[in-house]
């Protein structure tokens, strides 16, 4: 009890210290300016005003937030972080996560007077104004700096006041947590100060220069309810954004103390897949974007345009490269898997599988299942992106003369057979050479075979799943060619397996 009294006394002494009195003076003079503005507006238009006009304006004023509140918050936040990051404190807290929470506590110990003085002055400035629990007519006019009219549709004045206080606490806490995390990760004072400088500059430039569409990138948007409602169109969204980022920060804090080397190593193996998915998505977005201006295009048009591919007569670079990315990219990922599988194949494995064919089909079945799923994912992704681009949700193709069922058959059946051929071909090369580089060379040869004038007869089983082939070929004849090619490839695999057992 005695200890609590001492701390309370210390806190009151702190609030009454010269620095907070000076802060109060700044609020007072700025408040007087805003007060005069409200009164002038009200008299010029002969409309009513009340206490909320000055209180809410002071708490939402962007100039005050950008040029005074944010710098002061950044100062206290960085100072708290730098002072509290002490090994003697850390060892007692047990983890960096606990340190971040402790730092937030220490920050609010120092920073609460700022909020207290700000709110107090916003209420103090109402002296001399008429008091009411309702919005005034001045609140309804479109004011340049603090458009309170944005709030009228969503709040009563009191709930707007309370919501603004809650928003400030959440936003300032989140800002401090993020700065503390940055410092734990970098342990660099200069980096922390640079980030703080960027937040301030982002605020100064952002609130004036950024258009409404991307105003969410400007930090002050999250300090003011009026700015938030103006940007997001609803007060709920601003809270959702803050709570969303806050939740992500808290989730990140759960892994802040882990030795991330092992996790980074496990993530590393997924980097090629991540890059691959990213490139696939970008290609579909490109197709959707290029069809956006055409009238009457459907969601299936985006899908066809994305996987149109090339043949000997109809060649252009973008479909060529996109085909290479999607299908040869997939084959390359399979190649990565195969090189490990072939290298790891020892006698212990062969003994367990009893013969090589059993071993081959054990992983081949899995790969073919993935390949089949892969085509459904590609189509699903195309349709989702097409919907997002506002294409008509009709199930017919306008940019191609073939029947829809033929296109679907070609995409799924011939696509599957083509991928199967690529996988077997890459496996043969891996098996014979035991060197992954030859698999990459084979993929390069496949790319050359797609170039114009080379596969004029359509008998070389490369790129036959391009939708553009439907212009000159029946999908069923292409199926026959691919079945034949796969049969020959499997025959070679069988031969190689028999040869390898003859020691």
């Amino acid at each position, binding site marked *: 009890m005695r200890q609590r009294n001492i701390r309370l006394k210390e806190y009151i002494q702190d609030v009454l210290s010269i620095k907070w009195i000076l802060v109060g003076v700044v609020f007072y003079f700025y408040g007087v300016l805003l007060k005069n503005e409200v009164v002038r507006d009200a008299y010029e238009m002969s409309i009513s005003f009340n206490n909320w006009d000055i209180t809410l304006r002071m708490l939402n004023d962007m100039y005050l937030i950008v040029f005074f509140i944010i710098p002061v918050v950044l100062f206290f936040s960085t100072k708290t972080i730098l*002072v509290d*990051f*002490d*090994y*003697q*404190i*850390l*060892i*007692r*807290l*047990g*983890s*960096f*996560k606990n340190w971040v929470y*402790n730092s937030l506590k220490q920050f609010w110990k120092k920073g609460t007077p700022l909020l207290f003085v700000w709110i107090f002055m916003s209420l103090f400035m109402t002296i001399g104004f008429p008091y009411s629990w309702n919005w005034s007519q001045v609140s309804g006019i479109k004011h340049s700096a603090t458009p309170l009219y944005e709030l009228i549709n969503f709040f009563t004045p009191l709930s707007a006041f309370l919501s603004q206080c809650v928003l400030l606490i959440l936003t300032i806490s989140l800002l401090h947590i993020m700065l503390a995390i940055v410092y734990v990760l970098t342990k660099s004072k200069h980096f922390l100060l640079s980030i703080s400088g960027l937040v301030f500059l982002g605020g100064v430039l952002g609130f004036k220069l950024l258009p409404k569409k991307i105003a969410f990138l400007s930090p002050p948007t999250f300090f003011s309810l009026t700015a938030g409602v103006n940007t997001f169109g609803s007060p709920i969204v601003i809270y959702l954004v803050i709570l969303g980022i806050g939740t992500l920060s808290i989730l990140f804090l759960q892994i802040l*103390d*882990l*030795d991330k*080397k092992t996790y980074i190593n496990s993530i590393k193996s997924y980097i090629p897949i991540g890059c691959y998915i990213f490139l696939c998505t970008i290609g579909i977005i490109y197709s959707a974007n290029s069809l956006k201006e055409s009238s009457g295009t459907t969601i299936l048009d985006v899908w066809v345009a994305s996987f149109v591919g090339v043949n000997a007569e109809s060649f252009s670079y973008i479909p060529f490269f996109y085909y290479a990315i999607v299908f040869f990219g997939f084959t390359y990922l399979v190649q990565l898997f195969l090189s490990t599988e072939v290298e790891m194949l020892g006698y212990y494995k062969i003994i367990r599988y009893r013969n090589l064919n059993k071993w081959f089909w054990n992983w081949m079945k899995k790969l073919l299942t993935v390949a089949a799923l892969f085509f459904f994912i590609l189509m699903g992704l195309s349709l989702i992106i097409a919907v997002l681009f506002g294409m008509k949700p009709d199930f017919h193709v306008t940019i191609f003369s073939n029947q829809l069922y033929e296109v679907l058959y070609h995409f799924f059946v011939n696509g599957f057979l083509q991928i199967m051929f690529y996988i077997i071909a890459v496996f043969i090369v891996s098996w014979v050479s035991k060197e992954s580089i030859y698999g990459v060379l084979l993929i390069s040869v496949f790319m050359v075979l797609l170039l114009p004038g080379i596969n004029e007869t359509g008998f070389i089983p490369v790129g036959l799943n391009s939708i553009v082939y439907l212009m000159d070929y029946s999908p069923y004849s292409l199926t026959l060619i691919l079945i034949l090619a796969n049969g020959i490839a499997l025959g070679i695999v069988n031969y190689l397996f028999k040869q390898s057992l003859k020691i």
Partner: protein
Amino acid sequence: MSIITLKNVSKTYKGLTLFSNVDLNIDKGKIYGIVGPNGSGKSVLFKMICGFVFPDEGNIFVEGTEIGKRKRFPDNFGIIIDRPGYIPNKTGFQNLKELALIKGKISDERISEAMEIVGLQPNAKQKVKNYSLGMKQKLAIAQAFMEDQQVLILDEPFNALDAGSVDRIRRLLLSFKDEGRTILITSHNQEDIRVLCDNVYRINDTQLEVVTNF
């Protein structure tokens, strides 16, 4: 039984390879000395043991628990690493009180007692900003053991202490050893190491070498 174990630890710090596949076992109830030239990695070794930095390779276990898996910083460690960041406008007692409040395990009397043991006056009104370097060092030592920490990691604890204080702190550390506490210490003064340590390791060419005739 080993209270701290380093297995195949390698560490490069700011572009300099400090440790390469180092193994170390620290037994309970002994005083260990770590010696080596400036920049050889004594402080980094202590920071790794405390979990403040991770090794690039290898593992560190404290009381069987791997640092960075289920736990980040070990429990019950008293440390002096780098210069402690005191609050300059508060007294020595108030500074220790702030640290003690984090865990809330000890009374004001215990803080006063710890200050008196190292030769500081707990009731003095002198603020830390007016402390001499030696007084600040005594305050650092007091915070390291005031909560009865069982493992003390002390990086240059004798810095800036006068001869009388050095003697007092040496006796204190030896009494801690008799109580069964484990102490890791660095010092540039060979006499400190010779008087106090049961085992001495020298950091030489990214390895920890046992020093037999110190």
